[in-house]
């Protein structure tokens, strides 16, 4: 079947098998290998991408279900060559080690901050609780999201033209 999916603002039309998983469509058909496959059972979240405005586990979404919809992946996080504060936070706070869970973690964190710009540590942990990291023990991921929250707040305080970044 033919599908058209807008990934990171670019439209892609491809002939796919109806059973093709979204994660494999992104990785194998489009070559966007930043999203990872980790478990098959929706437990680990290495494959999290946004479908329209919502993070989903792309190992349990069919590519066909994304037809006519928008997908955002880690490759689309930096806008105009400028890193998202979440990406910066992960670097500044050592929120990643092997880097395998990182894209999914960052995309969920981005969604959280869009809906709750000043989350508590508990709210951050709750938001990330559907995803697994085997390297960080989560502490520095929480700090990374807090870092991004603080810097975005500072940017807002400085007004639309200002900001410290």
């Amino acid at each position, binding site marked *: 079947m033919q599908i058209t999916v807008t990934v990171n603002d670019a439209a892609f039309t491809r002939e796919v098998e109806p059973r093709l998983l979204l994660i*494999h469509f992104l990785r194998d058909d489009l070559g966007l290998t930043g999203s990872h496959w980790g478990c098959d059972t929706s437990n680990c979240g290495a494959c999290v991408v946004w479908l329209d405005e919502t993070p989903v586990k792309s190992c349990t979404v069919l590519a066909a279900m994304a037809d006519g919809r928008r997908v955002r992946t880690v*490759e689309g996080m930096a806008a105009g060559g400028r890193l998202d504060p979440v990406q910066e936070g992960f670097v500044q706070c050592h929120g990643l*080690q*092997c*880097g*395998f869970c990182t894209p999914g973690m960052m995309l969920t964190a981005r969604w959280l901050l869009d809906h709750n710009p000043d989350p508590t540590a508990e709210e951050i942990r709750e938001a990330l609780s559907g995803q697994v990291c085997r390297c960080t*023990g989560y*502490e520095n991921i929480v700090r990374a999201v807090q870092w991004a929250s603080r810097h975005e707040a500072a940017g807002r305080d400085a007004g639309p033209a200002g900001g410290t970044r």
Partner: protein
Amino acid sequence: MTARQAYLSAYGPVRRKEDARFIRGRGTFVDDVQLSGMLHGAILRSPLAHAAIRCVDTAAAQAHPKVKAVITGETLAARNLAWMPTLSRDVQAVLATDKVRFQGQEVAFVVAEDRYSARDALELINVEYEPLPAVIDAERALDPGAPVIRDDVAGKADNHIFDWAAGDKAAADAAFAAADVVVAQDMLYPRVHPAPLETCGAVADLDEVTGKLTIWSTSQAPHAHRTLYSLFLGLPEHKIRIISPDIGGGFGSKAPVYPGYVCAIVASQLTGRPVKWMEDRSENLMSTAFARDYHMHGEIAATRDGTILALRVKVLADHGAFNGAAQPTKFPAGFFGMFTGSYDLRAAHCQVTGVYTNKAPGGVAYSCSFRVTEAVYLVERLVDLLARELDADPAELRMKNLLRPEQFPHTTPTGWEYDSGDYARTLQVALDAAGYPALRKEQAERRERGELMGIGISFFTEAVGAGPRKHMDILGLGMADGADLRVHPTGKAVLAVSCQTQGQGHETTFAQIVAEELGIPVDDVEVVHGDTDRTPFGLGTYGSRSTPVSGAAAAVVARKVRERAKIVAAALLEASASDLEWGGGRWQVRGDPAQGKTLAEIAMAAHSGLELPEGVLGHLDADTVYNPPNLTYPYGAYVCVVDVDPGTGVVKVRRFVAVDDCGVRINPMIVAGQIHRGLADGLGMALMQAITFDADGNCLGGSFMDYLLPTSVECPSWELAETVTPCPHHPIGAKGVGESATVGSPAAVVNAVMDALKPYGVRHADMPLTPANVWSAIQGTPVRTDLA
């Protein structure tokens, strides 16, 4: 000379070089490798734990329009490749020929045009099995009449693998006979799996014209794998190139060679095309290296006043169907001989018996420092049980018996030479950070109210950085590591090392080591690793050996470069080399520090037309191999606070204080991250993780729905502190830290839960302390946690 910036140490919390690619989704993991014409492989696995194979019918699979090849044990046997050597000098079936010996064992390999078609074709293979009785309970493996698993070994009539002992039995027995108090306990360290988020896989690409075989693989030991492939496959070693690109966590489980790697290689040979094989999560959990599975009986002897005298241990080690434990050859039980822990003992003895069962092979694969994890768990539980028996405070009992600073270097009753330590100070830092007296007071108040709060302590000593070559090898390859350092004319440096990162941050830490020795910016050092064609030989990354061994090699090779630079600097400064001193990150004239040359100035001169003095040929490059004189012995003190719900058995880890002494810290940010990981590991193993089996050998931990890993909501905010006791024999005083917290933390969690359950009279319950298991313990009926 113009004013120079004040010289700053390159050590410190430098942000990681590798992050730039990972946060953009630009890492290159094995499954990201896409080659022109690449085919995809998939493995057919046994549904049964023990069965004879009567027939493997692949005709229908062969006929699938997208299938390019189907490989069976027969195909491999014709090439003499059906069995491969394991890292413990056993053999393991690549694809089964005679029978299957565990559920999930590799039976056939399909190569197809895409990954979905390869999976489809697996369904078309018909295997006729004749089920055999299985050995699932390790404690029954040596029963007379038990089914013999390894009848492939001529004359094998039982399931025994090895007996290994350490210590002085007579001295231990004498100490026990004279002791006021003896406490004994059976305890199981259940089978667990490290479950790195990236599963195992490989892309094999044989160039038929040049004969060069390139293998991208999830390997923690690319050089050792290259040698092993060469010996096993009969290919010349210089025609094999292993690339371990970005690796999504390893934790030891990516040290062995797996059948899938071999199948991908053979498939590339057969088809003339690159072949990718990536296992799925169930395959990963059911067939690649598990860890632990130690059934231990421990005894501790002491005087009435709480002086620990001796330890005795008997262990039954379940190694699964093939002995695939990745560990130094002379150590069949790994470094379990470290079970005397951090204490001043008179005598100790242990005996370990390894057995085969119808389970996946492995045994040393989860940040365990070659079974120091099991050893620490055993002794730290026994010390707590002794404290219970003596009605002593577990912190005070440890303080009384810890080795004292003046006893180092200390040779333990089982022969390990601990290099350095100030154990009491580290424990005190942990107790202070936790607010130990206040916690005990709070606990007493809560107990009055019927609330279950527990405080658990563990103190561990680790043995990492294997090893001295004369004592330690893997398959005959001495455990040393090489480093090459090149300095370009502009003073930029490229360090090539034999170890390989799976997330530990070598590209940053190793650059810091070189930068510190050469007085150049960290950004001016590029670290090359994970490619056998571009790096010197060495044994790889596991057992926390990167900084202790390769880190030492990096420092040593940088010092060689520095000494070579000194000769050139002397020529440049028209001074005698003996009049120069290294200061402020450059060579300068003693007594006249204004006269000095930086490495960049010296490097350019070395490449110039300058008439070079004797001892240098033109560049500053150097290489080395580091053969560690001893292991390093990091240590630490952990305090865990838990709350247990008596109605449900749910354990909540409220606080966890970890004080690690890993010697000099090159990048404290990375060190803290490593510790955080290990603490989450310990919490997971203590409370959640176990690979269990039913009576027929069905694996009950074969997915992340059944094998539970800690998430952000189970983990507390870790509280870290440190002490620093430099390693006396390491060039920069570092000891290694990668596995410390995994080794030290499970006992702290279990000790805390047992402390919480004290009002119920519970002495011991085995990990994982799931709500059901805790509830059973509260009812007075602790259960075996390895069997369904």
